């Protein structure tokens, strides 16, 4: 069996990063109607679980590209323009859970799910913190607004979505992974 490396990016990763990004883009576009009242640009997007899950299942680069490119696609489909630092944040949100990729042998094992849940929360926290802080630089807001207006609602929404849907996707993927023999 081929040996896996944390940062590998071969054919398999190229394809799954593209699938993850396309799924994230399509789901984001579909669920944009579920807008949370908390903040202007934050919507309740179950789709955020896609880059997190793709990170866990296929590695950090796949998670990163699923989030980064997927967010671009979602914004392009909705016609909202290009917000590169939020794309970067979404990429990090997928990349960080991907750091446990090599340690997972069974996707339905309790310890794998707990590890993934912890990384989902860390990923959502760091992933949304980076663009929120960059908004200080670009938009001239202060730290309180960046945290209260951007980071907190985005982190809360993304972490909740990830915590609920990533384990469901992991359990479903366990049988798929066994079927494909990879």
């Amino acid at each position, binding site marked *: 069996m081929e040996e896996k490396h944390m940062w590998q990016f071969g054919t398999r990763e190229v394809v799954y990063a593209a699938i993850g990004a396309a799924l994230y883009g399509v789901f984001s576009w579909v669920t944009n109607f579920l807008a949370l009242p908390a903040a202007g640009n934050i919507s309740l997007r179950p789709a955020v679980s896609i880059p997190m899950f793709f990170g866990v299942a296929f590695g950090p680069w796949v998670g990163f*590209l699923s989030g980064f490119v997927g967010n671009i696609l979602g914004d*392009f489909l909705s*016609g909202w323009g290009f917000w590169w630092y939020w794309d970067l944040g979404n990429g990090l949100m997928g990349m960080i859970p991907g750091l446990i990729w090599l340690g997972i042998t069974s996707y339905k094992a309790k310890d794998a799910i707990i590890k993934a849940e912890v990384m989902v929360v860390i990923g959502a926290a760091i992933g949304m913190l980076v663009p929120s802080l960059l908004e200080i630089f670009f938009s001239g807001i202060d730290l309180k607004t960046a945290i209260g207006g951007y980071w907190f609602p985005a982190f809360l929404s993304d972490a909740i979505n990830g915590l609920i849907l990533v384990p469901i996707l992991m359990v479903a993927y366990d049988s798929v992974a066994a079927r494909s023999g990879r």
Partner: protein
Amino acid sequence: MLVTWKYRPRQSVIETFDPRARWIFSMLILFAIIKFWDIRFLLFFFALVMTQYALTKLTWAETKRAWFFILFLILFIVALNTLLTGRGGTAEVLHGGHVLWRLEWHVLGLSIHPTITVERVWFAMSQVVRMLSISILFFVIPYTMDPRLYGVTFRGLGLPDRFAFSMDLAFRFVPTLARDFSTTLDAQKARGYEVERMEGGIIAQIRKMAPLVVPVTMNAILSGEDIVNAMDLRCFGIRPRTWVHQLHYQRRDHLLIAFGLVIFIAAIIVRNVLHVGDFWLPTWALQWAA
């Protein structure tokens, strides 16, 4: 459910430029804009990006949803920032100032009394112009750049072959996956799944998405195996790839990049050598406080 890209050929001037030149120009203008807090300079950039917008031949009907989204987002954040501290990139706005209103709110037993000063209001206006300029600069891209060219564009901008190809593939997968989603939605509805009835708390709402998210994702992963095998059989990644669409810089592209560079260098000279362009408050605005 039909997924359509916002792009369609409009025979506009903007579309005649090489996408790489447009990305480089946009990034240079972005980094020039963020050097300023003086509304006079920001209005120059606002005029520049609105000129770009005018050259795209976009109509109000096509873009009104995006305009509302951008304006709501900017006004919400600026209002929040102004009420919370009013401070931004320029520290002098934080302390003191000429009082315009002193508000007093009682929320959950706490007394909140933000003070709105002339300086804060003027800073908020500068902030709106700056944020709008940055948003409009990039807002036209989905409408005016052919999605088939993103892969080759980012390859041309230095992204490694595999990453650029992955990006290209993602754009191509969107219609297929949207169709799969639509089929799954119809199948689940036939089984009694009611996507429109989104009642219950947030957690219940998210869990209700699982019957849609899980089958579409697992189906896509299974199909992905076939694509991986097909690409491996064709020796993908052994040599640098060639692209169906080729991009070539024309004279106008070099001129666009040069124009962007001139503005960027001028911005550096104005801010770092002449020390002009920091937060500016006209003296006549102080009369508002009286």
